[in-house]
């Protein structure tokens, strides 16, 4: 595998690791942004340009900013009094390590049966557009409904209640 792939993967994994380890929440959010950028570069390396740029625009341009706003609105940027980890972090770590062990074993075990490298697929925006309104039109419409409901719901949930204070 090429050097660039290992470099980008190292940056992504480092970003993800710092996002769950650091004490200051805003630092975690910024490390998460680095992880998203690394993932977008991995998508670009896999010839999925549309998915890569959509990832940058949606995740870095919207989700990361949402997370940062939420941290600031909940006073998360002040240092917490107790530890930032829950009471029994070892259990969580063991579970995560177990999951990684199982997944890694499954991948390496079936490495010989996985498909090999093909020629570069073409996923132009035109083909994606045809697929979206052709074969995948039902998921598209459901997604539109879901996004509308989620937007209205998020606004209502986070709205200031004037009475009943």
């Amino acid at each position, binding site marked *: 595998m090429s050097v660039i792939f290992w470099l980008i993967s190292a940056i992504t994994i480092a970003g993800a690791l710092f996002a769950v380890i650091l004490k200051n929440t805003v630092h975690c959010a910024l490390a998460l942004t680095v992880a998203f950028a690394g993932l977008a570069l991995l998508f670009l390396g896999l010839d999925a340009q549309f998915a890569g740029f959509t990832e940058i*625009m949606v995740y870095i341009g919207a989700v990361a900013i949402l997370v940062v706003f939420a941290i600031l609105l909940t006073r998360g940027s002040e240092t917490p009094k107790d530890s930032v980890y829950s009471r029994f972090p070892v259990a969580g770590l063991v579970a995560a390590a177990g999951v990684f062990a199982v997944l890694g074993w499954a991948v390496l075990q079936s490495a010989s049966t996985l498909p090999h490298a093909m020629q570069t697929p073409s996923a132009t925006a035109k083909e994606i557009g045809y697929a979206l309104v052709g074969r995948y039109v039902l998921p598209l419409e459901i997604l539109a409904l879901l996004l509308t409901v989620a937007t209205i719901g998020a606004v209502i949930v986070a709205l200031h209640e004037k009475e009943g204070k």
Partner: protein
Amino acid sequence: MFENLDQIFILLRDMVLGYLPEPLRPFVSVVLGVVAIVAIFPGLFALTTVFERKGIARIQNRLGPNRVGPFGLLQPIADGIKSLTKEDIVPTTSNGFIHFLAPLVLVVAVFMGFAVLPMGRNMVLVDMDCALLFYFAMGASSELAVFMAGWSSRNKYSLLGAMRAVAQMISYEVILLLSGLAVVMITGSLSLTKIVEAQNVYSGWFPHWYIFTPWGLAGFVMYAIAATAETNRSPFDLPEGESELVAGYHTEYSGFKFALFFLGEYLAMFSISGLGSTLFLGGWSAPFSFLTWVPSWIWFFSKLMLSIFVFIWMRGTLPRLRQDQLMNFAWKFVLPFTLYNLMVTALWRFLGEGWERWVVCTVLVIAGYVLLGRVSMRREHFGPRSYRYAE
């Protein structure tokens, strides 16, 4: 002869590449393009700072810088020396790492946007199939840099300025996307080179630029409003208004880092004007069919400088909008009108060639604008003033 002049930069690059061995050629070709962009646009930035100061000064009935060179034209050199030799003050309670990175992230994200602009015939750095999507992705990345700058300074005013700037940029980014979407609908492609080639057609003398269509004019006006708000220029410059918030999110930056923020803001102005002229004003195509002998890159840069002139003109003329007025305007008027414009564009496409579609679409655009203005931008009627005297 004029074709050679038009392609002169391509010919120069091919000549340089001819001297190199085969394996190095793609790498050096990209490096040459990048060096050209990094050299030209900051140079234009230096020129624009003088023009802005002199332009605003003349609008305000004063002279502007006129000491350093003939008509003050060498002022950027003095500014550059000043910003390089100023002491770099970093507040002790600030988050050093993020404070250092914020201007870098901003400038990198803004420079990336230049990679997909077609600056002349065959003169794109990267000819991508999803070029417009790439440009908007890079624009979205620059918002986080603004937040990083404001938060890492540990200063209430910086944070407030950063929050206002991010809220404004997110709101107007949707409008930018939707007004560009109308152009994509008609052209049928996200690639900027194809969009320019679709506008490079002449019927008689007149070009088929999208601004000369009713939906194109409406889209261009919305795009211009959103572009002014995205780059935090007047009348949308509350986040960095000098009289309101000291200097907003770049209060705690001095010396070269402040110069980098300044550079980032002006480069964002250039790249968004470049995109606007690519989408609506025909990119590198000439305004009349008898003028196509003039090199294409001259047309692109002329349209760019014309847009910059309009930005400077607006800054000197219009008063600043308040934050709630700005957000109201974006969400209640411009966004619904942009969606309505998309529907009018679809109608244009499906009415077929002829004079009917011109009449129908013009009437629909004007009617939509008037109705939406009456409904959503109603002035609040205050009652008669009441005074309370201190007793």
